[in-house]
Each structure stands twice: as structure tokens, then as C-alpha cells.
């Protein structure tokens, strides 16, 4: 054992007892000064202290499954404590021992507490009844320890009387006499001992130690006992059903051995003693493996963690928690396979199918107790190099077998060994080995012969792969990127000692991990960023998109290449990350078992998308996750993306701040209106002034009644009319100063004079008038002042004033300073209702394959829509005024964000929230949903855009009935206006980002209406049928589809309805022709023939054919009639009809000619123009109805389709979106 890794140390009074908590990182320590401490050894903090014992506490134990602690002290008392954080207190005290209590222990399943004491007895207590239920007597000196057997009803005790005794307590389980009460509760009197002895007997007395025995315990699985005694010897005993005997002794301690434990998992013994050592022994060979010495302190007690590789030892001045081996498994990832070492086997774990097979045994490599430290894999040769720290560091190079054979190969067969502390592959057929003491790096070939020696430029402790032909050398203060070929340093980064290095999948980035820092560097170390962690960093792996995911002792975190980092999830126990793929982290746990953790990568994906300006992805994330809240807004703002943050914020104050920050005056204006506070207006004015948008400045000044500035603004923009208005306002306000200003700005001399006069400044008024050549006025003023020319002789004369406002060269009153057009912000466009194109997931590089696959199924529809947007951007313009401002609620989703800011003003100022109908509109790209939400305008736009619908008036009843059926009203409180409740189609969903309106019409109900139409056809009510088919087509526009399957059905239904409508219309036309133009037989026949070409159901096709037959026969077109009859026969009609048809065929054969020439070529496939009812033969040009896909002759492009009368023929349309 070359390492004893100290995890935690504490200083205190002498520690006499120790106990690990089975699940939490807690350790109870009983101290000689009477205190019991509860430590969290992972965080290194003292969690609590229990101080009720008087005098030293020696025994301590934690219940294996309940939150209970038991202690026993020199005050003869046993105390049981509640360990739960909120009520840590002594639950009860067990009294009965007559001397110091040495050890205490809980039974693993019964409510029993075992204790032993210097009073020479061992007692068993029922912790439920709090009674002593057995007293085991027999030892003739202090009993130093007593332990239950982990499975059987046995107790082993060690005593100063030099014996170890095994007691059979099976009698106790069969029903304690005490419990029945006859034995007398609390039988502590000596007189009761006999009763107890009847069901607990000494099974074996083990004699062999020459001095008092301090400790004895059972092996967890084998029939072995270990004991530690003052004769400095550890003895191992074996027992059978009938007897027990000494097996061997371990000698080596040179003072009293205080304690000796079996290792819970390995064949090891751990002991400690007053010789100030902790020693590790091989259980099989009974030889010492490792000694850990302490200078000052004698060891008194040892404890082993029940599940983990952890031990604790108590000594004179505190305790230490340590582990005996590194837990970090050696591993290496190559493509989809993880090669790792568990229990000294090299195994391969397939990330995709989870297969986990042992490939190679390395049991004979190095010390059997030490696991290999590192593993380097070479895919070209399937070679592995393992290093191990035992034997001063050795490595072994072996080839992995192609696949697992029956007998797993042992590496010693063909392994090539050598000494070296660090060894890694550097090329297909080369590996590098570091010898730390000589500071020499040897590059060897696969036959293990040295091809090159390198003297590293720095004191190197560890080697890592550094990219092609490079090494990363880790020294105590830096990492060096070293070129093997040129033998020179490429770059050096200062860093604490780097312990692990992880390269990203594409080899562009590398993470250099130290104990508390991670340096993310690019491949030539030219740029790098550093992350500090306060807690130990354990491992890391790269996500395919360039995000580094790492684990610390208790978290999984992410960090972006520029240094942003955050927590993904919390861990109970450390794990070693091996790989990240999509939402899954693959890792090895501390016992080297592969595990996976699923996490939510939304936060870092979002940040990454932001970094890369990948707005599609950001948007996708926003739409599909509920993560975003206040934190993300703060993040966006802090990172300098206020304009993006603006889209997520609802709170008007924040919106205002953000809008000002990013200079979005429209939003700022709008929010300022809602806030309506002077400081907002003045800030808005300031910002608008900066951007030269004086119109907003004007509004803001108006709002704050900032007349001075307003006037000056008008002067600056040269809007004289407004200046004169300002004059009037000033007059109305009775503010002479303002009047004066305004008249000055406006160059209104009279106005100015009149102000001066009004305020009694006659001299100034006079002079103003005088200098502006208004002598009459001047005289008037003079007169008003009661003076004459003579009185002002002494006033010097001034020349004519040239003071006038600057002339307006370019009036800018209606112009605002041009600013760079922000164009359509991506978000504005995308957020405008419904056009999120069904949330097509951007091809996220790290997207897991399954998800991507699923999205392929999103078929062409969604994509079509996208493409459509690109080619026809202005068409998307219709809804751009549907401000981005509306968006935020979907993001904020949960109430959290609102709640926080609203805390202070729960009261009267409550502002209305987002109506559910708005959410519906946001959540769906389907017209039907917009109709249900009452957003008729967007619904119409959608219909127009998706299916080219223009004649919306026909849909009014449908719109209204859907809207009406989607909202219901109820007032639970008397006399209040009823609440408008919104009927959802997914009532189990209450998340605002997913709720959708009820589907008022189902595809099913429409199909039954279609069937109704069929019945009309059969019943020859063609006009009714026509109406029904039209109504079906209308209803189909507003049906909610939820799967590809339904979409297919929908298309089918549309096609059927269209064919029938066409057929019925043709037949109606034929009847019209027959009635109104009876001489036009040719047209009559043509229409009859076309009717048979509509794709109808067999039954209806028969009707069409029969009517054609009779029409043609009547017109003496026997050949055609015979053709129709043949077609009729193919449909297997009624026998009677068959007979008629055969007659018709016979007639046709007799007289194979047609009396009337018609335009009907049944042998060339054709579509029927639904406007003219004439054939459009295959290959001829045609245009189509964007909704029903009915064909038309090209000249009808742009007209309203006559069939359904809804869509514009030939209009561009994107088809229905597929949002599911």
C-alpha cells in the first residue's frame, strides 16, 4: 500500500470512540473530555456537539438505518440521541452498568443496543422499551469491547482477562422473558442475572493473548474473528459450528494494539496502536503491507465506513479520516467505448448499448492492493498502457484481445513492463514514459525499446497527451506544451499542478484540471481561461458542442470556453465523468461502476447559443423549456445583450431600463407610458436626444411639462408653428419668462414687447420697439408709461436690432436623425404569433441521435413553411407589429418571475397579467387555435399564408362558433361578473407554454359530415350535397391536427371532399345544360363523361357511370356507352345492373360508332378544370387551388376557386404546419 490518503483531520481532545454515518458524510467522535462531536468530514465542519456525559466518552455508534446515535461513557451511562438536524437531543439514557462503559453498538435489525463495561458485564438493551434485556457475565476483568455478528445471533467480546469470548444470543430473539414483564423491568439488580443467562450463553472462550485484549470483531462474511491486544499482537481466529481456534498472529506493532479491523471489502486488516502507527496487513498472508506513522499521537480507536473505502482513526490530539487507495479508476475514452479498470480488470463499456465486458486481467501488475493509476488506449493497435504507483511506479504495455474470450487474458502473458511514473501513447506506435527521479522522458516503440530521450524543460510530475507529436508536461507551477519532434517548448501556462487533462472531441480545446482550478486552453495554448473552484475538482468531459462538463466533490458543473460556469446538478458522492452526450453524463462511480446521470443542459446551451449568436437555437430553447427566468435576464444584461433580454422581460420598469440601454426607443416609449414617472420621461428624453429622435424627445418633454426645453427643442428643429403654440401655452400659464423666451425664439418682436409691457418693464419694451423700428408702438409704450419723448432725452439711441432667430435652412421638424436600421430583429420576426414554424429543432451538434431522428419525422411541412418564409419575407410582414413585447410571458412561464417583483405591491396596483388566449396564440401555429383564442386577424393571416384562403367571409359562422365554444363563464362569488374560463384541449397541462385551446371540431366529426354528403349524393340531393361538401371543406380549414397520421387523414378528407364537390358540380352543370340548352348535347355528354372521371367511391361511381351510359346511349354514342358499361362491370355491381351493362356492351359491339363527337379522351390521363369543367390533359399547364389542390386552366391564376370558394387559385401557400 503505497498511499494512505488523508481526507480530513481534526484537532481535539483525545478521541476514544468513532462511528461513521452509513449514508451521509458524517462521523461521530467520542472524546476523552466528555464531548461527542459530529463532523462533516467532506466539508470539514463540526456539525454538532453532544455534551451531556460527565467524564470521558468511550463508546459511540450510529444506527445503520435510523437517525440515532448511541454513546457510552465513564459516567456509567448509555445515552441515545436523535441525529436529525432539527432536533438533535438526547432521547433517553440507559442506566445499569456499574462502571465505565467501553463500547456501544446498535443491532442491525433488532431494536437492541449492545454495551460492555468495566463492571465485567456485557449488556443488551431494548431501545424501544428502554430496558436491559440481557446481561452477559463471565469475563473476569474489564470488558473492553463487544460487537454483534453482522448476520448471526452472536456477540464477540474482548476483555482485560486476556480472553476473547463468543456468546450465543439466539435465545434472546425467541422472546425475551423480560419483555413479558416477569423478569422485572430494568432488572439491574445482581439477583436477576440468572434469568438472563438462560438465553445467552458463552459459546467459545478464545485464549491465546498474553495480555488484556482491547478489541475483537467478526469478519463481515467469513467465519473469522480478529482481536487486538496489549501483547502487541493481532490474532486471527476461525470458528466452526462447534469450536473456534487460533489461526495466526500478526506481529509488528511495538506497543499495545488498540484496535484491529477487517477491511469491509478487501482481504486486508487495518490496525492501530499506542506505538503511534496505523498498519495495514494482508489477511491471507498475514504480512504487513503498509505502516503509517505519527510523531506524537498514540492511536486509540479505528472505525471503517460500512460502504465506502474510508477509515477513521482517533488519537491523542484528534482524528483522521483516510482512505487506503485511490478511488479514481483509470480510464480512457475512445469513440463510443470507455476502457477502464475495475477490480484489476481492464473492461470495455459501450456507451451506446451499455455492454460492459472484461477484456484483460491486470492482477499480476504491481501490488495486488493497488489499482492501476492511469490507462492510455491506442486504437490503432488496441494497445493499452497502464501505470501503477506501487513499486515506485511501473507501466505495462499490452494488447487488448479483439473481443472477450472465455478465459480473460492476463496482462503478464505478453505485457511489456518498465519503470516510470507516467506513461501515455503519443502516436500510433510510440509511447512516452516519464521517470520522475531522473527527470527523463523516454519515447519508446511498441517493442518497448527506447527510440528517443527527452530532458523536459521543467521539473515534470506527470505527462499528458498534447495533440499530434506533442506532450503536456505538468510541473508544480505550470503546464508546458512540448513538441517531441523539435524538442522544444511551444507554450507554457502558469497553473497549479495539473492532475488531469481532457481534450475536446475535435481536439480544438483542452481542459487542464488541477485540484481547485480548471484551465481551458485551445490546442496551442495561445488563449486560455481559468476557473476557480473552492471545492475539489474530480473529473471532466467535453460536450460535443464545446462545453466542458466537470464534477467536483459534490456537483456536476459546466463551463464555457470563455469561462462562464454554473451548476448542473448536485451529487451525493463523487463521480468520474467519462463522457457527455446530449442530456446524459456517463461516469464511473467510486467503485468504478459505469453510471449515467441525466441532466438539463438548457442553461448552458442557451448561454452557448448566445455566445455564438445562434438565435434560432436560443429561440428554440426559449420555446421548449421553462428554465428561463430572472437569472437569465440578469445574465443577458450583464453580458451586454440588453436587446435580447428585452424579449424576456415583462416587468415594465426592467423593460424600460433595458430599452434605454439598448436604445430601443419604441419599447422605451411604450413602457415609459405605462410607468409614467417624471424621471423615466427625462431619461427617455435624454436617450432620444442622443439618438436624434426629437419626436420622442418632444413627447417626453411634453409629458414632464418641461416647457423650457420644449421651446428650445422647437427652436433647434425649426418648428415655428409649435413655437407659437408654446407662446400661447406660456400665456395661458401666465409665465412671462417663458413667453419672453418663446417670442425670442420665434422672432416675434411684438410678442416680446407685449411681455415686457405686461410685466411693467416699459423701458425695455420701449427700447425693443424702438430698435426694431416699431416707432408707433414705442410711442404707445411711452404714453402708457406716462412719459413723453422729452423725458427720455438722456437715453442714448441704439441702432436697429439685428436680433432674429436663425433662418431655417432645412426644416427638420418632420425628420428624425436616421439610425441604422435594426431591421427585423430575429426575435420579433420569430415571435410574431404562430410563425415559429412549429419549433423545428435547430441541428444542434450535440443533440442526441434519437431526438434528431424524431424530428426528421416532422416531415416536409414544417420545413416547407420555413423555406416559404425565406423566399417571401414581406409576406411575413403582416404580423410584425405584433410586438416582441408580448413574448415574455411564455418565457417566464411559471409565476416565479412575476411573483418576485410583485412582492412589494401585492395590493392595489396589480397590473393585469397575460390572458390565456394570448398564450394560446403564442403556443400554436394553427389557425383553429387562433380562432379559439379570438385572434381572428392572425388566424386569417395564417389561413391565407398556409392555404391561400382569401374569401374569409364564408368562414364567419365557423369562426364564431369555435370562438364561442372555447370559453365558458362562471362566477363562483356572488354578484361578481363571471370569470372567463378557457377550455383547453389538454386539460392535464397547466404550464403556460404548452396550453392549447380545445379542438371544437374534430377531424372525426368532419368526416361524419362528409359521410352525410355521400348520403346526399346517393339520394340524388345534389344541391344539398354540394353545400355539405363546401361546409366540410370549410370546417377542414379549422380543425386541429395532432399527428402525422391525422395530417394524412386530413389531406385524404380534403381530397375526397374536393373530388365529390367537383363531381357534384359537374353533374349539376350537366343538368343545367340539359334543361337550359337542350340542343347542346355535346356538352351534356362531355360533362357526363367527366363526372365518371372524378375519384368517387365505387357506389357513387356506379351512379355516375350509369347516368353516363344512359345519356350516351340516348345520344346514340354506342361505342362510348359500351366503354362506360365495361368500366361499370369492373365495379362488380348488382346482378341486375350487370345484365343491363352487358346489353349495353353488346349494343356497342353491334354498332361501334359515336353519333356525336365530344372532347373526351379517356385514354390520356387528365384533370378536370374545376372552373370550365374541361379536361386538362397530362402535360398541359395547369394551376392549382392551394387548399384543395383542384386543377385549373392557367388563365384562372389569381381568381377565387369556384369549388370551395375559399382560396385564391395559384396563390403561394406553405401548407399546414405540424406542431406536434
Amino acid at each position, binding site marked *: 500500500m503505497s498511499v494512505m490518503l488523508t481526507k480530513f483531520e481534526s484537532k481535539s481532545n483525545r478521541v476514544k470512540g468513532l462511528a461513521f454515518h452509513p449514508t451521509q458524510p458524517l462521523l461521530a467522535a467520542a472524546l476523552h473530555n466528555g464531548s461527542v462531536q459530529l463532523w462533516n468530514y467532506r466539508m470539514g465542519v463540526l456539525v454538532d456537539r453532544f455534551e451531556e456525559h460527565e467524564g470521558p466518552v468511550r463508546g459511540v455508534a450510529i444506527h445503520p438505518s435510523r437517525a440515532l446515535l448511541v454513546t457510552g461513557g465513564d459516567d456509567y451511562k448509555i445515552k441515545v440521541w436523535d441525529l436529525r438536524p432539527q432536533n438533535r437531543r438526547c432521547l433517553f439514557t440507559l442506566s445499569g452498568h456499574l462502571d465505565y462503559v467501553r463500547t456501544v453498538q446498535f443491532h442491525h435489525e433488532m431494536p437492541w443496543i449492545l454495551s460492555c463495561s468495566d463492571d465485567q458485564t456485557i449488556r443488551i438493551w431494548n431501545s424501544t422499551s428502554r430496558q436491559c434485556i440481557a446481561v452477559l457475565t463471565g469475563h473476569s476483568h474489564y470488558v473492553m469491547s463487544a460487537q454483534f455478528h453482522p448476520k448471526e445471533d452472536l456477540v464477540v467480546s474482548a476483555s482485560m482477562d486476556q480472553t476473547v469470548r463468543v456468546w450465543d444470543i439466539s435465545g434472546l430473539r425467541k422472546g425475551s422473558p423480560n419483555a413479558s414483564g416477569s423478569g422485572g423491568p430494568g432488572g439491574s439488580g445482581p439477583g436477576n442475572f440468572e434469568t438472563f443467562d438462560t438465553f445467552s450463553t458463552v459459546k467459545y472462550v478464545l485464549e491465546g493473548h498474553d495480555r488484556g485484549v482491547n478489541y475483537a470483531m467478526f469478519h463481515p462474511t467469513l467465519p473469522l474473528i480478529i482481536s487486538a491486544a496489549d501483547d502487541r499482537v493481532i490474532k486471527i481466529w476461525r470458528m466452526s459450528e462447534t469450536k473456534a481456534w487460533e489461526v495466526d498472529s500478526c506481529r509488528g506493532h511495538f506497543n499495545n494494539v488498540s484496535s484491529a479491523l477487517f477491511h469491509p471489502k478487501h482481504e486486508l486488516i487495518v490496525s492501530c496502536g499506542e506505538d503511534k502507527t496505523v498498519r495495514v496487513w494482508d489477511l491471507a498472508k498475514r504480512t504487513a503491507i503498509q505502516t503509517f506513522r505519527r510523531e506524537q499521537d498514540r492511536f486509540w480507536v479505528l472505525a471503517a465506513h460500512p460502504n465506502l473505502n474510508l477509515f477513521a482513526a482517533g488519537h491523542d490530539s484528534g482524528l483522521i479520516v483516510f482512505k487506503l487507495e485511490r478511488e479514481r479508476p483509470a480510464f480512457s475514452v475512445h469513440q463510443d467505448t470507455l476502457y477502464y479498470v475495475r477490480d484489476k480488470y481492464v473492461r470495455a463499456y459501450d456507451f451506446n448499448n451499455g455492454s460492459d465486458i472484461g477484456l484483460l486481467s491486470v492482477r499480476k501488475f504491481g501490488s495486488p492492493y493497488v489499482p492501476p493509476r492511469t490507462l492510455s488506449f491506442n486504437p490503432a493497435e488496441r494497445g493499452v498502457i497502464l501505470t501503477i504507483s506501487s513499486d515506485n511506479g511501473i507501466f505495462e504495455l499490452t494488447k487488448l484481445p479483439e473481443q472477450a474470450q472465455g478465459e480473460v487474458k492476463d496482462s503478464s502473458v505478453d505485457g511489456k513492463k518498465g519503470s516510470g511514473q507516467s506513461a501515455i501513447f503519443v502516436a500510433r506506435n510510440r509511447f512516452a514514459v516519464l521517470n520522475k527521479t531522473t527527470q527523463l522522458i523516454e519515447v519508446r516503440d511498441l517493442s518497448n525499446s527506447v527510440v528517443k530521450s527527452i530532458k523536459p524543460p521543467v521539473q515534470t510530475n506527470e505527462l499528458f497527451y498534447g495533440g499530434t507529436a506533442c506532450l503536456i508536461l505538468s510541473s508544480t507551477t505550470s503546464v508546458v506544451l512540448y513538441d517531441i519532434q523539435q524538442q522544444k517548448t511551444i507554450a507554457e501556462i502558469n497553473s497549479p499542478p495539473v492532475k488531469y487533462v481532457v481534450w475536446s472531441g475535435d481536439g480544438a480545446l483542452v481542459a487542464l484540471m488541477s485540484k481547485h482550478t480548471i484551465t481551458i486552453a485551445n490546442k496551442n495554448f495561445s488563449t486560455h481561461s481559468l476557473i476557480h473552484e473552492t471545492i475539489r475538482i474530480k473529473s471532466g468531459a467535453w460536450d460535443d458542442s464545446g462545453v466542458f462538463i466537470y464534477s467536483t466533490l459534490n456537483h456536476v458543473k459546466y463551463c464555457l470556453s470563455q469561462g462562464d460556469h454554473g451548476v448542473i446538478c448536485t451529487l451525493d458522492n463523487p463521480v468520474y465523468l467519462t463522457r457527455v452526450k446530449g442530456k446524459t453524463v456517463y461516469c464511473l462511480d467510486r467503485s468504478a461502476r459505469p453510471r449515467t446521470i441525466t441532466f438539463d443542459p438548457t442553461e448552458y446551451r442557451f448561454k452557448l447559443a448566445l455566445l455564438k449568436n445562434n438565435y434560432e437555437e436560443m429561440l428554440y430553447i426559449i420555446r421548449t423549456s421553462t428554465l428561463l427566468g430572472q437569472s437569465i435576464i440578469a445574465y443577458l444584461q450583464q453580458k451586454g445583450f440588453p436587446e435580447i433580454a428585452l424579449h424576456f422581460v415583462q416587468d415594465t420598469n426592467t423593460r424600460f431600463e433595458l430599452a434605454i440601454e439598448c436604445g430601443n426607443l419604441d419599447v422605451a416609449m411604450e413602457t415609459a407610458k405605462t410607468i409614467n414617472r417624471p424621471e423615466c420621461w427625462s431619461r427617455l428624453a435624454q436617450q432620444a436626444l442622443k439618438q436624434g429622435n426629437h419626436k420622442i424627445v418632444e413627447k417626453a418633454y411634453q409629458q414632464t411639462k418641461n416647457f423650457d426645453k420644449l421651446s428650445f427643442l422647437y427652436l433647434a428643429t425649426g418648428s415655428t408653428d409649435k413655437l407659437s403654440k408654446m407662446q400661447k401655452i406660456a400665456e395661458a400659464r401666465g409665465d412671462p419668462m417663458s413667453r419672453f423666451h418663446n417670442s425670442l425664439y420665434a422672432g416675434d418682436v411684438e410678442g416680446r414687447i407685449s411681455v415686457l409691457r405686461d410685466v411693467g418693464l416699459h423701458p425695455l419694451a420701449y427700447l425693443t420697439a424702438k430698435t426694431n423700428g416699431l416707432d408707433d408702438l414705442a410711442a404707445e409704450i411711452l404714453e402708457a408709461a406716462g412719459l413723453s419723448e422729452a423725458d427720455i432725452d438722456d437715453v442714448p439711441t441704439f441702432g436697429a436690432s439685428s436680433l432674429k432667430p436663425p433662418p431655417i435652412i432645412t426644416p427638420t421638424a418632420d425628420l428624425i436623425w436616421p439610425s441604422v436600421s435594426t431591421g427585423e430583429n430575429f426575435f420579433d420576426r420569430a415571435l410574431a404569433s404562430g410563425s415559429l414554424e412549429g419549433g423545428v429543432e435547430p441541428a444542434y451538434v450535440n443533440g442526441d441521435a434519437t431526438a434528431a431522428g424524431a424530428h426528421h419525422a416532422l416531415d416536409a411541412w414544417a420545413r416547407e413553411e420555413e423555406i416559404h418564409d425565406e423566399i417571401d419575407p414581406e409576406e411575413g410582414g403582416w404580423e410584425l407589429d405584433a410586438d416582441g413585447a408580448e413574448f415574455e410571458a411564455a418565457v417566464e412561464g411559471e409565476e416565479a418571475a412575476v411573483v418576485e417583483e410583485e412582492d412589494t405591491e401585492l*395590493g392595489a396596483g*396589480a397590473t393585469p397579467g397575460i390572458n390565456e388566449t394570448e398564450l394560446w396564440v403564442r403556443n400554436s401555429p394553427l389557425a383553429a387555435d387562433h380562432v379559439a383564442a379570438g385572434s381572428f386577424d392572425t388566424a386569417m393571416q395564417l389561413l391565407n399564408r398556409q392555404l391561400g384562403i382569401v374569401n374569409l367571409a364564408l368562414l364567419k359562422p365557423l369562426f364564431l362558433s369555435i370562438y*364561442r365554444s372555447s370559453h365558458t363563464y362562471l362566477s*363562483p*362569488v*356572488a354578484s361578481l361578473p363571471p370569470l372567463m*374560463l378557457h377550455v383547453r384541449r389538454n386539460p392535464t397541462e397547466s404550464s403556460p407554454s404548452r396550453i392549447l385551446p380545445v379542438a371544437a371540431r374534430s377531424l372525426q366529426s368532419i368526416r361524419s359530415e362528409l359521410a352525410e354528403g355521400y348520403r346526399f349524393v346517393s339520394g340524388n340531393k345534389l344541391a344539398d350535397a354540394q353545400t355539405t361538401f363546401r361546409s366540410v371543406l370549410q370546417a377542414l380549414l379549422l380543425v386541429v391536427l395532432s399527428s402525422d397520421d391525422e395530417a394524412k387523414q386530413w389531406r385524404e378528407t380534403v381530397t375526397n371532399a374536393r373530388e365529390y364537390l367537383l363531381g357534384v358540380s359537374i353533374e349539376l352543370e350537366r343538368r343545367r345544360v340539359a334543361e337550359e340548352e337542350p340542343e347542346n348535347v355535346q356538352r351534356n355528354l362531355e360533362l357526363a363523361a367527366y363526372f365518371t372521371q372524378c375519384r368517387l367511391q365505387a357506389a357513387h361511381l356506379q351512379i355516375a357511370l350509369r347516368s353516363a351510359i344512359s345519356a350516351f346511349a340516348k345520344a346514340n354514342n354506342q361505342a362510348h356507352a359500351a366503354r362506360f358499361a365495361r368500366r361499370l362491370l369492373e365495379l362488380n355491381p348488382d346482378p341486375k345492373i350487370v345484365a343491363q351493362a352487358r346489353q349495353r356492351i353488346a349494343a356497342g359491339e353491334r354498332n361501334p360508332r359515336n353519333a356525336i363527337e365530344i372532347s373526351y379522351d379517356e385514354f390520356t390521363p387528365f384533370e378536370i378544370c374545376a372552373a370550365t369543367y374541361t379536361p386538362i390533359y397530362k402535360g398541359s399547364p395547369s394551376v392549382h387551388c392551394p387548399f384543395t389542390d383542384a386543377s385549373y386552366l392557367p388563365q384562372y391564376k389569381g381568381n*377565387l376557386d*369556384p369549388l370551395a370558394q375559399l382560396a385564391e*387559385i395559384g396563390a403561394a401557400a406553405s401548407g399546414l404546419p405540424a406542431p406536434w
Partner: protein
Amino acid sequence: MDSSELYHIKQQFVLGAYKTLTQLTLPDPSSPDYTSTLLYKARAYIALHDAKSALQLMPEDTEDVSLKSAASLARYVAAADATEKEAALEELRDLSVEIEGDESEGSEREKAAVRVLAGTAFVQAGEIEEALETLGTDTEDLEAVALIVQIYLSINRPDLAKKQFDRSKRWAEDDLLLQLIESTIGLVTGKDGYSNTSSFYTEQLGNPSLSSPHLLTARGVTRILRNEITEAKSDLEESLQQQKGNSEAEAAYVVAAGLGATKPLEAEELWTRFAAEHPTHPLVENVNQKAAAFDEFAAKFTVPPLATASA
């Protein structure tokens, strides 16, 4: 603590058994329950839009502020034009101010009643903010909380409503009204698929001490929300049997019909009749508004000429 009679009356009022309440015989005027009973009876009349009967109940010369405010509310509801309405509102405003004064008489219960009645009128008048202010969002009167919650819900702030509810839970114990509040919030948020609301109404329908068609309507509405249309239909039909022409139930029935409970034609007929009979019901008003909006929006699309053979 309320007497058991009063408790029962309150329960009926909360659960909307207004009809039963109006048929109640008042206790002796000297009884301590007299005023409260009278108040609930009057409020039941008001809830049934029968403000005249409520006014008749009211003593002319009362000094009791709660009765005064009930009379004002009744006048407000009965008011034919805006001035009358405004006058009634003013009365209520005065009363609300009066009870805030230190020297004001009247017990806490009376004051609370004034606030609730005034708040009701303010909400009806659309003065949401005034209503909230009057009720006081930190009130410890559960009826006021119920009002506040509905107000918040009506302005799409279920978060605030939830907050009020959570706050009330602390002092209101498990009052029936509190359960109603919770169910009301559930009605709007749709938490857990409306399960709480649905079970609340189902439970109260099984309450032996009262029967209220309002509960049937409410459950019907809940079932509509849960997309259980046929069940909703039967609830609403039953409710309509008990109280013909109740606009609330009929409105819900129209919605259920539109969602497939009946044939489309029938649904259309029901709607036409409903719209004619209750032109002021919000459902009708809303739909009419939308109809007008439809024409406006539809007009923005130019309809090209029909493609015909002659063209």
C-alpha cells in the same frame, strides 16, 4: 363564532344556493343573527339580479352600515342609467370612507360586509383598482379574499390569487369558503387537470344540507374544462331543470353544445336563442364584439373574382 343557523346560511350563500336563501324566514329582529341573516338574504336577491326584492327587505331607517351598503349595492344593480349607478357608487364610497374613520361605529363584521359589498359594486363598475383598495389585500376577511381572488383571476394574475390564497390558509383554517377559493383558482390555472376543482364541486354536490343548481353548473363548467363534454351536458341539463333560464347554466350549455354535446345545427339554435335572451351576458357581448372584428379583419383581404367558365 356563528350560530349554527347563521353558519348554514353562510354556507348556502357561499355555495350559491341563492334561491333557497331568498325563501328564508327571517329570525326575530331582536335575535343577534337578525342583521346577518337579513344581509345574506338581500345579497342572495342581488345575486339573482332581483335587486328590487332586496331593496324591499331593507329597513328604511337603519343605522347599520352593512345594511346601508347592501341597499346601495342593490340600488346600483337595479339602476337603470349611469347617473343612478354613479350615485349608488358614491354612497358606497362614502360608506367605505366612513368605516375607515376612527370614531366610526359598527363591529368589524359590519365593516367587513361594507367592504365586500362596496368591492362587489366597484368590480361591477370595472373599478378594479378601487375594489382592491377597498377590500385591502391584507384583509383577514375571507369573503373579501374570495373577491380579491376572483378579481385577480379576472385580470389574469393567478399568481397573485394564489398568493392571497396561501396567505389566507394561515388564518382561515379549512373554511368552506377557503376551499371554494382554492377551487376557483384551480378553475383558472387548470392545475392537475382541474382535479381539485372537480372534486370540490362533486363533494359539495353530495353535501346533504343544501342543494344548489349553481353547484351543478359549476361542476358542469369544470367538466367542460376537463373535456368531459357528455358528463358536463348532463350536469347542465339537470341544473337547468332546477332553475329555468339561468344565464350562467345556459351559457355553459351553449358552450358544451358547441363542443359536440349536440348536433351542430342544434348548437347553433341554442346559441341564437341564448344570444337573444341574454344580450348582456359576457359570452354574448364577447362574441358580438368578435363578430364585428371579424368583418373588419376579413375586409382586409381582397377577394378576387370567381373563376367561371365565362371569365
